[in-house]
């Protein structure tokens, strides 16, 4: 018998750490957006990019099992986007992201958004080297999702409660939902937004801005934002 005591996802974690080093050296803030299919990740991203692209350099990695639709939606906003098709795979892994970086080459001091495959289960376990996982939950999905998929809400630092423009038409208990999320993750922050009406988006942008400042504490020369490096 040989004792080995190794994490099953040890290989993924090694790749994730290599990505993390790359991001740290360049001062790139990386956010991994996770949610069930259709909760509004791409809609939220296109609006966010349109509102922030004058202030920051943004790049996007899009993960989907099939099609390049989402990457095309992002490119229409004018920022670089790379599509990874996972085929049968139900999540992005750190190795795929490492390869994407060779082609995408995010600008130092910029922001890289990774839209993970729509799936509330598997992406929770796969570290990509991101600074934060951001879980998006739309109010049409029901307030009990944090309890049904606890691993994802446990792994996320921020939950965006999306589609709040639809609240008047639904029987969705916002307070209960937030209470459930805190039950599985007492540290989670929650912001209520509508990616279509724009309500609440300022606070999301503030959160991004502050996370970027944290990222750039070690790179003060990059803080000025887009163009600082041109």
């Amino acid at each position: 018998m040989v004792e080995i005591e190794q994490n099953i996802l040890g290989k993924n974690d090694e790749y994730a750490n290599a990505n993390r080093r790359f991001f740290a050296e360049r001062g790139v803030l990386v956010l991994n957006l996770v949610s069930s299919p259709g909760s509004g990740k791409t809609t939220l991203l296109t609006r966010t990019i349109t509102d922030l692209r004058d202030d920051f350099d943004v790049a996007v990695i899009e993960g989907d099992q099939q099609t390049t639709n989402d990457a095309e939606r992002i490119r229409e906003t004018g920022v670089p986007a790379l599509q990874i098709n996972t085929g049968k795979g139900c999540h992005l892994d750190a190795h795929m992201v490492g390869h994407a970086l060779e082609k995408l080459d995010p600008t130092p001091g910029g922001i890289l958004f990774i839209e993970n495959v729509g799936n509330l289960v598997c992406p929770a376990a796969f570290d990509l080297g991101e600074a934060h996982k951001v879980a998006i939950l739309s109010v049409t999905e029901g307030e009990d999702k944090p309890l049904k998929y606890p691993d994802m809400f446990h792994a996320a630092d921020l939950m965006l409660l999306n589609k709040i423009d639809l609240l008047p038409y639904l029987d969705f208990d916002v307070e209960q939902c937030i209470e459930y999320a805190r039950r599985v993750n007492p540290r989670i922050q929650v912001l209520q937004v509508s990616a279509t009406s724009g309500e609440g988006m300022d606070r999301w942008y503030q959160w991004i801005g502050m996370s970027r400042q944290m990222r750039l504490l070690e790179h003060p020369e990059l803080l000025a934002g887009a163009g600082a490096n041109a």
Partner: protein
Amino acid sequence: MHEMSLCEGVLQVLETEAGKQGFSKVKRVILDIGVLSGVEIPAFEFAFEVVMRGTLAENAVLEINELPAQAWCLMCAESVTVNARYDACPKCGSYQLQISSGDEMRIKELEVD
């Protein structure tokens, strides 16, 4: 969830260790899997057999130790056992729990040739 990818993860570790430690066949794989890891044991067993076919661990026996989850209850000021992340303290009903273990996915030991 992604039991196939997890088994591919196991295989990668086995292949790396085989190179380092100089063995060519794995006869038994012993894993620690915590109840909070999200792993479905029957799905994992099925995937394990499929993924190990034609590899150094073909027909290897899979042994899984299922580990319970421990949490610290702030109210009781003691460690309690829970089964899910959203469980209340089994003693006092409080949700003020800090989970300290239970999400393990570890290869513990191998029997090799």
